[in-house]
């Protein structure tokens, strides 16, 4: 067996969940890298097919179609995701709400010219938001009012990233970096033992990193105002919407969170955005490492003090802020 330090890194790019994904993994040879990557990609495809709200035959669509009607039977995985969404809802005081997607009906980010929905339109949508009212158990779920919707958009990709790490580990991969559309999960450090360098996207300059994190393992996920937005009268309206007001968040351009699991990092980043100015206190209370870019473009957070340098994608020469996160190793 060749020494791992000389084991090659294999790169697999693929598209799913309307994003570009990349797997970097270290394996003995092309065949084993391919096997592991194929299994990982298959799981991502499975999760997309099962939970995408754009698919007619998905669990999400079935649940949404039955809104106001009979309960829909769900399996253990769906129940686990609902349970996680329920925890996020509770822990965020209702800010994180998987029923808030109905706001998309009044916020059309592709429309030209863009239009800010008026208070009455927003109120009509807000009336359909409310995880509190959803009747769910481990076996069934029922949206109480016709027109209600759930979506796993705020969880699914991160969940998939964590699953991919597990699948790769199950194939004996000890060093891998999983990047699902910017939600990044590391499985072990780089083959030479050094951490992966993950750039944090500059919220205003696509393709550039504003800073970066070193990741031994664990995950970093970013929520930002730049994915979908429009500007009217010089004001930016982004797709991250407060379920209480139906209005976009404004305090942060982006928040990146480092946590052992991508799904936890992603939820914390999204909730921080929804918390507006209180996001910093929320993240500090969670004791996660984080980097935020506020509305002025200023870096904040425990990971922000070392460098504020913006530049091209991360390179080894760049003096990155180091936030080290370790995976949850087997403690048994």
């Amino acid at each position, binding site marked *: *067996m060749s020494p*791992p*330090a000389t*084991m090659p890194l294999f790169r697999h790019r693929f598209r799913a969940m309307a994003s570009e994904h990349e797997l970097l993994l*270290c*394996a*003995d040879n092309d065949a*084993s890298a391919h096997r592991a990557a194929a299994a990982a990609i298959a799981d991502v495809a499975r999760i997309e097919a099962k939970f995408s709200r754009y698919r007619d035959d998905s669990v999400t669509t079935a649940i949404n179609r039955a809104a106001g009607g009979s309960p829909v039977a769900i399996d*253990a*995985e769906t129940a*686990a995701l609902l349970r*996680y969404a329920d*925890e*996020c809802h509770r*822990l*965020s*005081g*209702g*800010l994180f709400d998987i029923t808030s997607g109905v706001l998309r009906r009044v916020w059309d980010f592709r429309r030209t010219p863009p239009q800010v929905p008026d208070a009455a339109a927003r109120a009509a949508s807000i009336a359909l938001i409310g995880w509190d009212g959803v009747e769910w158990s*481990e076996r069934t779920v029922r949206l109480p009012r016709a027109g209600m919707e759930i979506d796993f958009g705020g969880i699914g990709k991160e*969940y998939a990233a*964590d*699953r991919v*790490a*597990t699948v790769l580990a*199950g*194939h*004996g991969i*000890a060093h891998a970096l999983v990047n699902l559309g910017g939600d990044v999960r590391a499985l*072990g450090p780089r*083959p*030479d033992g050094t951490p992966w360098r993950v750039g944090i996207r500059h919220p205003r300059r696509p393709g550039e990193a504003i800073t970066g994190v070193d990741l*031994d393992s664990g995950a970093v996920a970013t929520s930002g105002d730049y994915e979908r937005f429009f500007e009217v009268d010089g004001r930016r309206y982004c797709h991250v919407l407060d379920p*209480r*007001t139906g*209005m976009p968040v*404004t305090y942060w351009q982006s928040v990146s969170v480092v*946590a*052992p*699991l991508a*799904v*936890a990092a992603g*939820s*914390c980043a999204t*909730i921080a955005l*929804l*918390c*507006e100015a*209180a996001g910093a206190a*929320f993240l*500090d*209370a*969670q*004791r996660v490492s984080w980097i935020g870019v506020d509305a002025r473009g200023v870096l904040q957070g425990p990971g922000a003090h070392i460098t504020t340098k913006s530049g091209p994608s991360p390179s080894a020469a760049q003096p990155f802020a180091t936030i080290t996160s*370790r995976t*949850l*190793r*087997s*403690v*048994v």
Partner: protein
Amino acid sequence: MPSSLPAVATSAGAPAGAFLAAALALPGIVPGLWSPAAHAQTAPDAAQIALKYLDYRDWQPGADRIRVRSPSLYVLKPLGDAFAVEGTLVYDGISGASPRFHDALSGASGIGVSDHRTAGDAKLTWYGERVAVGISAAVSSERDYLGRALAVDVRVSTPDNNRTWAFGIAGNSDRIDSVNGVAENQARRSVDVLLGVTQVLSADAIVQSNLTYSAGHGYYSDPYKLLDTRPDHRRVFAWLTRGNRYLPAFDATLRVSYRLLTDSFGSVSHALDAAWVQSLPEGWSVTPSLRYYTQSAADFYFDPPFPRGFVPGGNYTADTRLAAFGALTPGIGVTKRFADGWSADVKLEYYRQKSAWRLGGSGSPGLEPFSARWLQFGLAKTF
């Protein structure tokens, strides 16, 4: 933001790590984290095969005693999503001088040892939603001994998967047919019950506590020892508590455990274990460990050469395993994980037993220091 927002609980009030704790309950994202206990409903999704080779020898001052060479094979295979089958096959080749427990009993304690043992077990586990049920059978065969066991265990996890309850019951049936004719076709049967709980304390910490009770009757004596007559029933109560904690600052896991065991023979023992699992780059890990063990003597143990106030028909033994002593076992293990699901490990343990090391009382006099070492090589592959 406008100040007219409806009042909601401040989200900064969520307890630290709460999101992570919630995320950990999602299926299939943390492999083996809480194994063997929690996540009872998750069937293994990869097959595994492991080959081990154990080389054991023990000795007393000036005398090599027993040497055991023991290869074993372990196979785990998932059957669909809800079942897994696993099994172990062990062959022990035993050779060496007869056990010499005390100088005074030297030569009186049995026959020369050259034997082999073949043992195997198989287990079928069904994984339901938050419940796992396992049925297992085991057989162990030697020239003068046949042991058979059947067991059922049930594990139930709470909805958040942070706590797992375990219940188990096992029946054992042994047959002893000593080559020296002392014990002919003797039987021993026992029933064991187990109640356990595993609790996840945080993303980095887990504790487990198990109570076991065993009640048996039959032939417990050692047919190869002079003056070895033991009660025909034995009840054993054991309490095991162990905790593992991952320490991010060191990238290491500390494992500690304590076991209390008392039995109706009158012996009480304490075992304290600690191990430090240090992760190193490139898939290496090193695990130094230390175990301290101490026990009091059985009620009917006598210090050789001969029991005081001997009463014919009474219970007597001079078996060192029922004497009072203390023992230390330092050990070190090295594991290397390769790509492609291979892993290799080597483990060395050294056992040293002395009567003076007993805690809370004096050890049995006349016990010679006893030493043993285990050297084990393992190779495993996950598919």
